[in-house]
């Protein structure tokens, strides 16, 4: 019988929640790595029991962990992330140039085909890869070497590479996103990159056709239609129908188009989910009502999903890594909040219930559908 495993990274450890296909009764294990910030935990599509976790701390730096048994036990693996060559500089908050400095791993994206190969998106923004199960990590320097690096700048959360999307139909095609540089695409397995930000409009960037500098928060793709991308930008929900070559806005009737996560229904390619947040200085839901918004039309027309979510006095945030979908029928949708709740819907968002209510602030949520 199918079951699901939800991987939750928080400010003070990782948690693993499991349930059968009904997704009503949950077993929670953790905290794993208690006291450490767990930016992301993700399983290999090629071997679901192979998990990787980014464990980090302001005191003791970056560690990487690997599990070969679905999160029951963990082993530290290589934690050395060294930029290739001379790191160079990027723009600092005050507009001056600032040297690239490694801070932490934000995002882990295991290969679609090889459990030992994993991409890592780091702060300060760069893309690394391991091909030996995490023992060693090498930068794919073509991204930082694109030439626009001096124009990249940190957002409030740091200059992070937070999104890595693999195109299953073009094995060499990768998309990444950086706050605040924008989206980039490689068609040669990460050797060379080009920015794919045409159509993005960002307040504060005087050049309306700026190639880089955009604060992209998240990109999502349905694997069966990889040419169509959905983006939650700092402001604006965007869509591309040509693999990022151009973007158009699909915010439509959202109450606010600021937010962090975006995801696509596992079986309906035009059904997408966002969590509108009031503004970039008020990181909480409008009107104290926690609402997921769903579009069944690939954007523009949105409906509020509220059943089971707090509709008064709710002032949590939902971070960019903190939403995921399973591939059961009906599609399950999951998200975590900075208030420590992890909510699940077993009916594509129609109704919600908390898996757990009182974790540390949730940084990331991933889900695995297991046979």
């Amino acid at each position: 019988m199918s079951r699901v495993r939800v991987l939750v990274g928080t400010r003070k450890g990782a948690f693993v929640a499991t349930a059968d296909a009904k997704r009503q009764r949950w077993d929670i294990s953790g905290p794993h790595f208690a006291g450490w910030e767990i930016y992301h935990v993700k399983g290999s599509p090629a071997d679901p029991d192979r998990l990787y976790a980014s464990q980090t701390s302001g005191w003791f730096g970056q560690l990487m962990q690997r599990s070969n048994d679905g999160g029951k036990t963990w082993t530290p693996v290589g934690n050395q992330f060294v930029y290739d060559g001379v790191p160079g500089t990027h723009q600092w908050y005050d507009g001056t140039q600032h040297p690239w400095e490694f801070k932490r791993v934000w995002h882990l994206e295991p290969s679609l085909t090889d459990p030992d190969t994993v991409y890592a998106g780091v702060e300060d923004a760069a893309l690394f890869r391991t091909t030996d199960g995490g023992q060693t990590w090498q930068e794919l320097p073509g991204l930082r070497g694109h030439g626009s690096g001096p124009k990249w700048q940190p957002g409030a959360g740091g200059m992070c590479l937070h999104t890595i999307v693999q195109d299953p139909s073009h094995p060499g095609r990768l998309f990444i996103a950086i706050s605040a540089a924008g989206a980039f695409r490689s068609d040669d397995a990460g050797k060379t990159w080009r920015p794919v930000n045409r159509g993005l409009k960002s307040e504060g960037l005087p050049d309306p056709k700026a190639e880089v500098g955009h604060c992209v928060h998240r990109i999502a793709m349905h694997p069966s239609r990889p040419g169509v991308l959905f983006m939650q930008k700092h402001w604006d929900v965007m869509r591309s129908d040509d693999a990022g070559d151009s973007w158009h806005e699909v915010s439509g009737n959202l109450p606010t188009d600021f937010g962090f996560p975006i995801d696509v229904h596992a079986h309906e390619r035009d059904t997408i989910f966002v969590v509108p947040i009031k503004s970039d200085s008020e990181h909480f839901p409008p009107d104290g009502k926690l609402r997921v918004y769903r579009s069944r039309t690939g954007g523009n027309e949105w409906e509020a999903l509220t059943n089971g979510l707090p509709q008064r006095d709710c002032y949590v945030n939902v971070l960019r890594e903190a939403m995921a979908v399973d591939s059961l029928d009906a599609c399950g949708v999951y998200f975590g909040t900075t208030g420590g709740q992890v909510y699940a819907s077993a009916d594509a968002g129609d109704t919600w219930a908390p898996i757990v209510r009182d974790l540390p602030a949730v940084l990331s949520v991933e889900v695995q559908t297991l046979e």
Partner: protein
Amino acid sequence: MIRVVLPQHLRRLAQVDGEVQLHVDGQVTQRAVLDALEARYPVLRGTIRDHVTQQRRAFVRFFACAQDLSHEQPDAPLPEAVASGTEPFLVVGAMAGG
């Protein structure tokens, strides 16, 4: 033997209880002690000092014999009481909230 006391998170990471005892050849310095510590527990590499620059991480401090040794040169001799094992070398995580 050199005695080293690690903060709780690093003890858990290295899977040790209590003090660590290390044999150090030659002059007992910060660098020699940390080299021996990382050789015994490779998982600690990068957690106390940077992998490449070998600089102490900003929120980690070194104490011994009631002295803050954090800003001493890495190759300066540690106090005799540390070298003789009378006093431990303390690796301390800064007391900052979070």
